[in-house]
C-alpha cells in the first residue's frame, strides 16, 4: 500500500512537470498558439452551426429539442476537447510516427510506464482552453431550459462523464496501440479511434434503435460518454446506467493495459 502511494505521488509529480514543460512549448510561438486555439474553437462552432441550421427545419430530433441538443453539444465539446487535449494531439496521434522513426526507444527505455508516457506526456493547451467554450454552452442551455438541477442527477452525470472519459481513453488507446502491429505511414489508426468517438458521442442516444442501441450501450459504450449524462441532467436516468458505466470503465481500462502490454512487444526499433 505504501509502495503504491509512493508510486502514485511519483507519477503525479512527473505529470505536473510534463504539464509545465508542455505549456512552455505550446506558448513559445504565440501566433501558432492562437491559430491552434482558433482552429479548435472553429470545430466547435461548426457543430453548433450545423444543428442550428437543422433546427430551422425541424422542431425535434429523436425527441430532443434544440436547447436540449445544445446541452448535449456543450457536454460533448468539453468531453472531446479534454480527450484531444490530454491524450490525443501530442499523445496517441504521434504514436505511429514514434514507431516508424524508432522514437519509441526513448519511451520504452525510461523507468516510466510507456502507456502513461505516450498518452499523457504532452497536454495540448489549445484544446483544454476550448473546453471552456463547451462549459459556456452548457451553462447557457441550463439557463434557457430553466432546469432545477438535483444534486443526484448532477452527481450521476458527473460519474458517467468520468467513467465515459476512462472508456473513451481506453478505446482510443486500444485502437492506437494496433499501430505496433500494423505499421502505417500516417496516423490513420489513432484517427479512426478519435473519429469513432467524435462521430457517435455527439448524437442523442435515442437515434440508436434496436440492435444498434445494444451495440452502443454494451459493446462500444458511447451513450455513456455524453448523451446519458445530458439525459441525466435533463430528466434523470436509472441508477443502473451509472453503475454500469463504472463497471464498463474498469473493464475497458484493464483490457487496455493488457492489450498495450501485449502489442508493445511487437515493436522493433528503427535503429536510432
Amino acid at each position, binding site marked *: 500500500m505504501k509502495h503504491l502511494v509512493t508510486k502514485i505521488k511519483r507519477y503525479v509529480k512527473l505529470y505536473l512537470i510534463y504539464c509545465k514543460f508542455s505549456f512552455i512549448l505550446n506558448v513559445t510561438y504565440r501566433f501558432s498558439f492562437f*491559430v491552434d486555439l482558433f482552429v479548435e474553437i472553429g470545430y466547435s462552432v461548426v457543430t453548433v452551426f450545423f444543428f442550428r441550421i437543422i433546427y*430551422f427545419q425541424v422542431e425535434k430530433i429523436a425527441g430532443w429539442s434544440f436547447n436540449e441538443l445544445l446541452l448535449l453539444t456543450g457536454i460533448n465539446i468539453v468531453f472531446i476537447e479534454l480527450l484531444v487535449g490530454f491524450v490525443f494531439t501530442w499523445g496517441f496521434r504521434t504514436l505511429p510516427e514514434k514507431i516508424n522513426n524508432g522514437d519509441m526507444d526513448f519511451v520504452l527505455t525510461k523507468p516510466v510506464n510507456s502507456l502513461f508516457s505516450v498518452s499523457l506526456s504532452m497536454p495540448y493547451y489549445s484544446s483544454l482552453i476550448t473546453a471552456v467554450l463547451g462549459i459556456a454552452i452548457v451553462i447557457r442551455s441550463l439557463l434557457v431550459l430553466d432546469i432545477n438541477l438535483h444534486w443526484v442527477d448532477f452527481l450521476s452525470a458527473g460519474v458517467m462523464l468520468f467513467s465515459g472519459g476512462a472508456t473513451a481513453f481506453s478505446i482510443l488507446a486500444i485502437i492506437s496501440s494496433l499501430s505496433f502491429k500494423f505499421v502505417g*505511414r500516417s496516423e490513420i489508426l489513432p484517427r479512426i479511434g478519435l473519429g469513432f468517438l467524435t462521430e457517435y458521442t455527439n448524437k442523442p442516444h435515442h437515434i440508436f434503435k434496436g440492435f444498434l442501441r445494444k451495440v452502443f450501450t454494451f459493446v462500444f459504450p458511447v451513450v455513456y460518454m455524453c448523451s446519458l449524462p445530458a439525459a441525466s441532467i435533463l430528466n434523470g436516468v436509472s441508477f443502473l446506467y451509472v453503475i454500469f458505466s463504472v463497471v464498463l470503465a474498469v473493464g475497458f481500462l484493464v483490457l487496455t493495459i493488457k492489450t498495450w502490454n501485449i502489442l508493445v512487444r511487437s515493436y522493433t526499433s528503427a535503429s536510432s
Partner: protein
Amino acid sequence: MKKYCQFFKTYLLVSTAYKVDIFGTIIRELIRLFAILILWNAIFSSQQLSGIDFNRMLVYFISIPLAGFPSHISVSTSLGYEIKRGELSNYLVKPVNIWIEKMLKSFAFKLNYLFTVAPFYLIILIFFFPRDVSLSAVNIFVALFWAFFGFLLNFFLDMLVADLAFWFDEVWAFQHFKSITFSIFGGILLPFEFLGRLLRVIFNMLPFKYFYYIPASYFIGIRSIDKFLVKDVIVYILWLVLFICLYKLLWRSGVKRYEAFGN
C-alpha cells in the same frame, strides 16, 4: 518529362506500400458515413426537408466522399514541413518544378485511392441506391468534370496554404482550418439547399463548393445544369486564376526569405 514519370511511379509505389493506410481510410470513412446516415434518418423521419427527401439525402452523403476524393489534397502538410525543416533545399537545387512534382504526387495517391477505396463507396452507393432516384449520363459526366476541376482548384489553394510555412512556424493548423471551412462552405455537413437565402448567396460565391457540393449535387440532380453550369464555370475560372496568381506571388516572396535551418 522522363524525370516526372519517374516521380509519378515512385509516389505510386509509396502510396501502396502501407496497406494499413488503405484499410484504415476505408474504415474511417465508413464510420463517418454510418454516423451521418443514422443521424439523417432520425432527422428526416419520413418527411421532406428543403425539397429533398431522405433517399436523395442518402445518395448525397454517400457521393460526398466519392465526389470529394479527387479534390482532397494535403500537399500543404508535407510541403509545409519541408519548408520548416529546410528540406525544401533538396528541391530548389534540382532541375524540378516543385508544383508539378507535388501535383504528380497527388495524382499517384488519387490513382491508388481510385482502385482501392473508391470501389467500396461505389458498392455502398449501388447497394443503398434508392429505386425512386434516377441518374442521367449527363449528370454523371458533369459530376466527373467537376471532380477533376475541383482537384485542380484545391491543389493551388493547398499550395497557397503551404507557402504560409515561409512565414509561420506551423501550417498544420491551416490544414485544419481548411477542413473546418470545407465542412461549412464545401457542403460536407449539409447541402446548400438547407441554408437561408442570404447564406446561400454567400456560399455560392466562395470557391469551396467546387470541392464537394458541386460534384455531388450535379450527380444527384439537385443542381440544374441549365440554370447553374455556365455561372459555376465562370466563377470557377476566376477563383482558379486568383489562386494561381497568389500562389506564384507568395512562392517568389517566400523563396527569397527562405533559410534552410537544420539542413
